[in-house]
């Protein structure tokens, strides 16, 4: 696909912003699936407890994972209502890093080998 110039004039074309190419999600999912098949990785899981405040848990998820509040609250609610939430799937080193950070904030988190 060729980017057309503004107004059809080649000589006075305004600078154009090239639109980012967005790959179909299904392709990315396939790539992820094959990657995880080769290296299942480790799940970082946060478990429910009766002491940490909901607003605190949401805040911690936002800080550690850089999530928007909506996503952080989704996982916080999973923890609260379902007893646990799988936060991320990562390599051993990265999963350890996240678990350490969650523990520094006093959350009850573990890492488990993904099957």
């Amino acid at each position, binding site marked *: 696909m060729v980017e057309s110039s503004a107004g059809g004039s080649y000589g006075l074309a305004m600078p154009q912003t090239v639109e980012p190419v967005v790959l179909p999600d299904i392709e990315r999912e396939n790539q992820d699936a094959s990657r995880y098949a080769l290296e299942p990785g480790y799940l970082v899981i946060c478990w*429910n407890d*009766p*002491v940490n405040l909901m607003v605190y848990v949401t805040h911690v998820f936002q800080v550690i994972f850089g999530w928007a509040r909506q996503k952080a609250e989704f996982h916080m609610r999973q923890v609260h209502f379902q007893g646990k939430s799988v936060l991320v799937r990562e390599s051993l080193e990265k999963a350890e890093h996240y678990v350490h950070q969650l523990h520094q904030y006093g959350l009850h988190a573990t890492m488990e080998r993904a099957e």
Partner: protein
Amino acid sequence: MKLLKTEGGRFVFYLGRREAALLLKVLKFYPLLPTDYHRVTRSTGAEWGPDAQRLLEESMAEHQRENVKLLELLGPRKLRPAGDRPGYRLALDRAEVERLLQILNDIRVGSWLRVGCPDPDEGKLPEVNDQNVRYYIAMRAGEQFECALIAALDPGAFPRDGELEPGDEDRPGHPE
């Protein structure tokens, strides 16, 4: 504890005299959680488990040492007379506020353990007596300070009246 202003990446809080005294008393409890309190995994027999647990405990010990250093600075250097009011001003950058949150939560969770792990959802009340009542006070005070810090970092964290969603009635102070 009230946020007065944010300037130059710093959060300036106002604390009344009694409030400041309470904060300093609560912070003296730190650390309450032993470094081996957390488990890195629930998997039994994982070959990587012991090494990962040792690494976690070393990391937590180092983190506690850094937090203790921060607390040593907090009283004399950070808490200053407000001047125009009878209380104090506390100026912290974002990283210090996050550290203070971690410290307060360590005190909250450690205090919670010492008053019998109360669980409102299960109807389990705190087991308070003369020996552990100070931990109960630390747990409740820590909760208030945590909420004030989170509200400063993220003003949208606490919905205003009328913005609660169904099932949210117990937010924000309800334990998870």
